[in-house]
């Protein structure tokens, strides 16, 4: 059943939601739009296509405490952090980020299930938003994602001054049942016009043939990696803005008399110390680390997950890499060429 609400009334809806649960939405702060907790004072930016950081942080936060220790003489007290028990809503997730949740599920909900992630998934309601104006850096169409009709518990469309919403799950139903009924026609029109733009995106026709487990060694040994990686600074920008990157580090913070906090935080395979052990690292050069990142997204992950790529075509890496090195370069450079 289609529901609707005018933009004028949206703050009221948000206030109602935020009274009972945490509401996360794209919010502008100091000139940048990121997902954050909505309060009546926040600057809501549903029109912003891409938040700088992806929406994955709602389920897999950049920093998360896992266990707290207290040490006294030779004894240790262990206090595991509590998993989330309260419901929350994440509003305005785009189709690409919504797909990334499914990819993260493949990692964190695989046996053994990650308890912190699982709790967040259980308690989170995802409201997605169709992309009225996709950009030149978008290439989600290559991964079978429909930006005109994203998945999620609720799907929303912005049409001029009205937001149309459709519940896809029971959780979604519970969230929007209070709204008045809306018409299907404007949404159908919108889907059609978005579809037309999607067809015109310049990066629509990436050839992903050959990026699979069967060609693992062939892709790994491709001599082009060195050239692709030569400008790479080895920073973690692409990793940290990526919706599907999920590597993490576990670290201890010694807070003196306050005990020791063990937390996990996002990590990047681009960092030189990622695989560093006492006797050295198995990926000593940036070329190897660069290769690992893209091999994982385009070959290793699909080999393990029925051909599903660990990229959703959001294009954040295209926009944010300080040296313009990104996954599209890799796909085009290593992929099968049209004239081959």
């Amino acid at each position, binding site marked *: 059943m289609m529901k609707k609400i005018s933009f004028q009334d949206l703050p009221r809806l948000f206030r109602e939601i935020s009274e009972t649960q945490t509401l996360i939405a794209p919010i502008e702060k100091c000139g940048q739009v990121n997902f954050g907790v909505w309060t009546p004072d926040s600057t809501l930016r549903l029109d912003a296509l891409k938040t700088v950081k992806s929406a994955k942080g709602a389920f897999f936060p950049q920093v998360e405490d896992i266990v707290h220790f207290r040490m006294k003489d030779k004894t240790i007290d262990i206090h595991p952090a509590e998993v989330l028990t309260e419901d929350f809503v994440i509003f305005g997730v785009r189709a690409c980020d919504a797909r990334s949740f499914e990819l993260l599920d493949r990692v964190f909900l695989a046996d053994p299930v990650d308890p912190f992630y699982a709790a967040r998934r259980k308690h989170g309601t995802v409201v997605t938003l169709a992309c009225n104006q996709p950009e030149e850096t978008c290439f989600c169409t290559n991964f079978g994602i429909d930006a005109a009709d994203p998945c999620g518990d609720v799907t929303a469309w912005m049409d001029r001054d009205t937001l149309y919403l459709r519940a896809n799950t029971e959780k979604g139903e519970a969230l929007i049942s209070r709204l008045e009924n809306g018409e299907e026609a404007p949404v159908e029109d919108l889907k059609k016009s978005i579809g037309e733009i999607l067809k015109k995106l310049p990066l629509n026709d990436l050839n992903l043939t050959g990026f699979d487990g069967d060609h693992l060694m062939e892709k790994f040994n491709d001599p082009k990696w060195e050239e692709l990686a030569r400008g790479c600074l080895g920073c973690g920008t692409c990793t940290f803005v990526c919706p599907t990157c999920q590597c993490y580090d576990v670290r201890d*913070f010694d*807070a*003196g*008399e*306050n005990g020791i*906090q063990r937390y996990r935080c996002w990590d990047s395979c681009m960092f030189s110390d990622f695989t560093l052990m006492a006797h050295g690292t198995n990926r000593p050069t940036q070329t190897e680390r660069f290769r690992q990142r893209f091999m994982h997204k385009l070959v290793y992950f699909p080999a393990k997950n029925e051909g599903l790529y660990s990229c959703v075509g959001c294009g954040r890496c295209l926009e944010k890499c300080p040296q313009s090195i990104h996954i599209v370069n890799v796909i085009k450079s290593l992929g099968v060429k049209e004239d081959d």
Partner: protein
Amino acid sequence: MSVNKEWTPNIVAFCCNWCSYAGADLAGSGRMNYPANVKIIRIPCSCRLNPMFVLRAFQRGADGVILCGCHPGDCHYSTGNYYARRRMTVLFSLLDFMGIERGRTRVEWVSAAEGAKFAATMNDFVKTVTELGENKKLGDLRCKK
């Protein structure tokens, strides 16, 4: 900001081994009073003070950090304190630029003979920092009690 009556500031004083540290000794043996919440850390020369030490002190709950070294011209290694002087000037100015209250950082030159100056300096610094109140801007919450 409501200052708890019980609250007293944590002060870290980095003291050069050759002068101020001895100055502190002299203050002690001369029975001159200075607050007990000044924690002295001995360093071999004022220029040994890595700016990271200052930040680390704040991280771990210091409310004020003071560096005491030999008077310019009297450095045991002849020029160490001149370098320290420039470094700390630039660092303190940067901290100020980031909104950390100016009074929380200080450099004083105290010789081994100036026990009274040492005590007076510490008394004055503790007073300044007490007035500024708790350091809430540059500490790690996980270290707070």
